[in-house]
């Protein structure tokens, strides 16, 4: 029976970091305060940056070091600060009330999704000699939790955070492969980051309060 257990120190620390990232995603899902969303997202990004740095150190890849620093700067500090200043303070967002299910239900569904991602990513599915095989199911779980956050929350800012969580999940999955991985995935993930910034600036703050105040649940103009 193959297992997902890591053997090297790098592997174990990556596993640890990814578990912490998963907890951040759960914390976000279970929270009701906008401030907390941003806080947990920032924390998760810092952990992601640490994971990238570990991979960079192990494989001695310069571009990964750059990536780790960029992740810390943009996702760990930049986006959370911007969100706090541009959105949460300006729009005086405090409690998120536009939630379509109860939080406990959301958390239970989140648990089921995590179990599901372990079922899907069996050891047989994964390539041999992965530095930390357990990271793959965890990153899948983070992706699913991010999607769940987007489904459960109706507020546009909360949905945005859900999407950013999902991005972190994809990114975590990608860096475990990076030893053999071309730089293009990094570029791709960064393009998504640009996307996130664009979405945030253009839609939520730049284009006015109307949209930010309206939860997407109230967007009922276009149907049929």
């Amino acid at each position: 029976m193959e297992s997902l257990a890591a053997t090297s120190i790098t592997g174990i620390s990556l596993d640890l970091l990814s578990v912490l990232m998963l907890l951040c995603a759960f914390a976000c899902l279970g929270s009701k305060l906008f401030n907390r969303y941003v806080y947990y997202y920032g924390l998760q990004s810092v952990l992601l940056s640490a994971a990238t740095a570990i991979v960079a150190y192990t494989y001695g890849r310069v571009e990964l070091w750059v990536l780790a620093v960029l992740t810390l700067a943009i996702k760990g500090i930049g986006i959370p600060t911007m969100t706090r200043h541009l959105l949460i303070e300006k729009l005086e967002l405090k409690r998120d009330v536009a939630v379509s299910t109860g939080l406990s239900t959301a958390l239970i569904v989140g648990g089921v999704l995590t179990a599901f991602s372990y079922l899907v990513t069996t050891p047989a599915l994964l390539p041999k000699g992965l530095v930390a095989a357990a990271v793959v199911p965890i990153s899948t779980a983070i992706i699913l939790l991010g999607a769940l956050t987007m489904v459960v929350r109706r507020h546009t800012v909360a949905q945005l955070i859900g999407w950013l969580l999902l991005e972190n999940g994809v990114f975590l999955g990608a860096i475990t492969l990076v030893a053999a991985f071309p730089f293009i995935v990094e570029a791709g993930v960064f393009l998504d980051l640009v996307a996130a910034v664009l979405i945030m600036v253009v839609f939520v703050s730049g284009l006015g309060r109307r949209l930010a105040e309206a939860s997407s649940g109230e967007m009922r103009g276009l149907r049929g």
Partner: protein
Amino acid sequence: MSTLILAIALLPLSGSLAALLGARARGAGNAACISAATSFGLVVWLVAKVSQHPHYSAFDGFVYIDGLSAFFLLAVSLVVLLASLGSAAYLRAEETSGDLTPLQVRLYFGFFGVFAALMLASLCTGNLGMLFVLIEGSTLASVALVGLDGSAPSLEAAWKYVIISSLGVTIALIGTLYLFYSGTGLHLASNLGLTWPYLYQHAGALAHQSLRLAFLLAVIGYGTKVGLAPMHTWLPDAHSQAPSPASAMLSAALLNTGMYAIIRFLAIARVGLGEDYVRAVMLTFGFLSVVIGVLFMVRNGNFKRLFAYSSVEHMGIIAIALGFGGQLGFYGALLHVLNHAIGKSVLFITSGDVVLGYHTRDADDVRGLLGVLPVTGTVLLLASLAILGSPPFGLFLSELTILRAGFAHTLWLPMLLLVLLVIGFIGFAKTTTSMVFGEADHPVQAYSTITQRRLAAAPIVAGTILLVVLGLWIPSPLHTAIMASIGSIS
């Protein structure tokens, strides 16, 4: 050859450049039209070249052209040309009437050029990571077009579009990651590993389980861009809120670009997993899309939404054709891609004229188009018949080919498709015929000057003539190009 490919992809940017330098609708429109025409000319040349040299690759596979990409380049660059002509007329009229500010006009042409360039570029790369980057980029460029007029519904549509499409394309990225997992047993040398030709050559050696997941995720992910049901929800909103020539770009170029990405994954999955799995996936999504498209086409009051649901239906038909597979299925699918692209650009550009004339998107308020805007009315009638697959237009021929490909497998699936097409026909034709005939209750003027009128008529008349030509006869170079594309993926 590399220069040629780069020129094709970069030329549409000249419209953006003109807009950036502060050109008005007229200057930017001219720049966009001239560059789109040049780009289209170069693509025709490229298609001719590709039929002699099956494929060309440079920069470690970052630039890769084969029959399939050449064919899709042909379809997309033709749409870009038609839409540029349409934009030039439409934006000039909007600028004159003061509906759009000069800044909005500049924004429009700026993003229009970037959008076109990114789509053309995504068809020219063999690197699957790069493909993801470019397709995601095209989403970002087109969002500004959807939300251009800044009103609440168009912002809502733009938000829905960007969030759903980005989510979809991210799922496609996960699919790409799994495709890479499936190839880890191979000796992948740096960037070569993610290039399509390399993976396609070694498709038989890819790990089955992850390839299965990769294909499914890619179909869902890029299917979001294509508008396959149930991921189509952004599509009618974005198409109805965007300025009409931009809707034409979304419907006829962007959806095809997504379909192109799916076909790339499909080609690998067919070799690696066999026909059955691929067929099951494509037929499921295909039929679901046709059913959803047809259901929403019946009694849809907003004509731009009607056209958008028709796009969902047609993308479903193409997915079904790919599912049926075989030489005939692929032939039908590719022919349908081209025909639908032309037909739908014509319809959307025409809808722009209607919006300018009647200031409404509600079909009930539009009467007597044939009397007040004769050219627009005639084209709308003909193009609706064409898009519904009646003879003698191109779509009749391609749908017939697809049905024939289906009958090679089963009897009831093509029959079901036929029934759905008939229901769609009735729903669609009812709305458009009531728009065309009757008496207009107030005077209507879409364009104020004769030049504008001529410019607006050019793309729609040319497109309609092309549709008739393609319905009567498939030119032998086109036949060669389609055969070359089938050759490159099977």
